[in-house]
């Protein structure tokens, strides 16, 4: 039933949407076909605008707010850069989630694509952590309140809760160390992001990492426009004894805190915070493999070692090895990694020597079918 649900979602939601998008953007610039590359645009914007902000940020209790105030009110184009950083973070999260939904609904997330999916869930959690720490770094009254709510939320976890809280705050209470911790979360965790991004691409030959220039420019223009129309503001100078009466939390990055302020119990929110990623991690395993135990078969006697299939395999499932056979005219031989093979048959199309076949569709059968139709 789950399989049918995904199938009908693809047929009734994703594909019709893309049909419309093809009319608007044309096939070459359809953003749906660059769903994985679009977050990379935001990574670049965040990296560059973040560097500029980092040049002015001072992570101490006394000066954090002053530097934010300087960037917002005095530095030429300071607020523009801050707005870019803020809205690009929202864009990043939105496009990452759209990317996730699309690979889910088009059934491109399991079996031979398991590594990109699992690392993708980790990347999503990392993005969330980076964004959340960024919201606390602003260090106005609202950000301080957010920090308090978060620390309190962490403290409620059984057994290790108090340690989690002091890990975030750098001690029992908010101090200079808190801001250093936040800066570390915001600048150190992106290194992990880069590491997992590398793993994300590991089993994909020729990954599409960049959207076309035209799409980048449209996005950049949209971002500029958004920053011009809705520049970000800075709240009041924080009083650590008080909590902010109004709290305008971004649901993308602070949804646990938002739910808590709406009166949800901490236990339920913790279940959600842990349950959503765990659920996403086990999601690819609830469907049975469609083609269990099948993978492309190399006919050793026909393989010439030309490595055409090796270059064309889109999942790096084929490797070329030394044949070590003195009776053969050929030096190299293709071998298939069963765990990575998608049974797609791209290697069959690449082979000019009838040396590789997928079990579910033999190329000789296709030829026979064509000949039979023409002889009848």
């Amino acid at each position: 039933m789950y399989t049918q649900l995904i199938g009908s979602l693809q047929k009734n939601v994703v594909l019709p949407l893309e049909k419309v998008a093809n009319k608007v953007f044309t096939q070459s610039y359809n953003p749906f076909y660059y769903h994985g590359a679009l977050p990379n645009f935001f990574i670049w914007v965040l990296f560059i605008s973040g560097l500029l902000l980092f040049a002015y940020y001072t992570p101490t209790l006394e000066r954090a707010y002053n530097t934010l105030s300087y960037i917002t009110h005095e530095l030429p184009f300071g607020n523009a850069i801050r707005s870019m950083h803020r809205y690009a973070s929202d864009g990043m999260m939105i496009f990452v989630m759209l990317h996730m939904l699309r690979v889910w609904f088009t059934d491109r997330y399991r079996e031979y694509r398991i590594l990109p999916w699992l690392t993708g869930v980790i990347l999503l959690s990392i993005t969330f952590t980076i964004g959340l720490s960024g919201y606390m770094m602003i260090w106005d009254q609202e950000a301080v309140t957010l920090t308090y709510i978060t620390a309190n939320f962490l403290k409620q976890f059984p057994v290790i809760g108090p340690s989690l809280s002091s890990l975030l705050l750098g001690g029992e209470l908010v101090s200079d160390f808190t801001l250093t911790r936040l800066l570390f979360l915001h600048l150190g965790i992106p290194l992990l992001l880069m590491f997992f991004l590398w793993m994300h691409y590991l089993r994909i030959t020729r990954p599409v990492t960049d959207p076309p220039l035209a799409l980048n420019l449209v996005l950049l223009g949209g971002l500029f426009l958004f920053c011009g129309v809705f520049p970000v503001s800075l709240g009041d100078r924080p009083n650590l004894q008080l909590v902010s009466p109004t709290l305008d939390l971004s649901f993308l990055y602070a949804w646990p805190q938002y739910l808590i302020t709406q009166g949800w119990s901490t236990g339920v929110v913790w279940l959600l915070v842990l349950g959503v990623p765990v659920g996403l991690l086990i999601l690819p395993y609830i469907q049975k493999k469609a083609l269990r135990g099948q993978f492309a078969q190399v006919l050793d006697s026909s393989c010439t070692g030309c490595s055409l299939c090796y270059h064309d395999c889109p999942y790096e499932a084929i490797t070329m090895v030394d044949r070590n056979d003195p009776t053969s005219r050929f030096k190299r031989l293709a071998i298939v990694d069963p765990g990575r093979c998608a049974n797609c048959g791209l290697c069959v199309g690449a082979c000019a020597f009838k040396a590789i076949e997928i079990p579910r569709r033999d190329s000789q059968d296709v030829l026979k079918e064509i000949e039979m139709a023409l002889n009848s």
Partner: protein
Amino acid sequence: MAKDKKVIGIVCERSVDLTDQLDSNGYLKDNPNVKIVTVPCSGHIQPIMMETALKKGACGTFATGCRMGDCHYREGNKFLRERLLGTRMPKLKPTVDKRRVQAYWLSAVEYEKFKDLIHQFDESLDTLGCPEG
């Protein structure tokens, strides 16, 4: 003439959805001289399959794949296009009459467009003329 004119279509099973459009022998209901052969992905299609179809007397042959950029197996349609255009090995033989070889990139929900394109192809084959069956 129509009886002898045969067109072979090698279609990707994830591209335009033909499950309800075929008769029991695998011919298109809307265009009974078009025989459909299904493969898992357009990247599975070897140019020799299309060459064979023409050599054995088909009037024309076409392939369908998903929209460019949307191949379920990432690059199948791109590779087929490059093979047909002669920029990727194995290539379509240069001696093949390119007017009789077509490739369409359509998603599963675009049967109407597919019908139009096949109709156009069919008419262009009529003007070219077909070998005697």
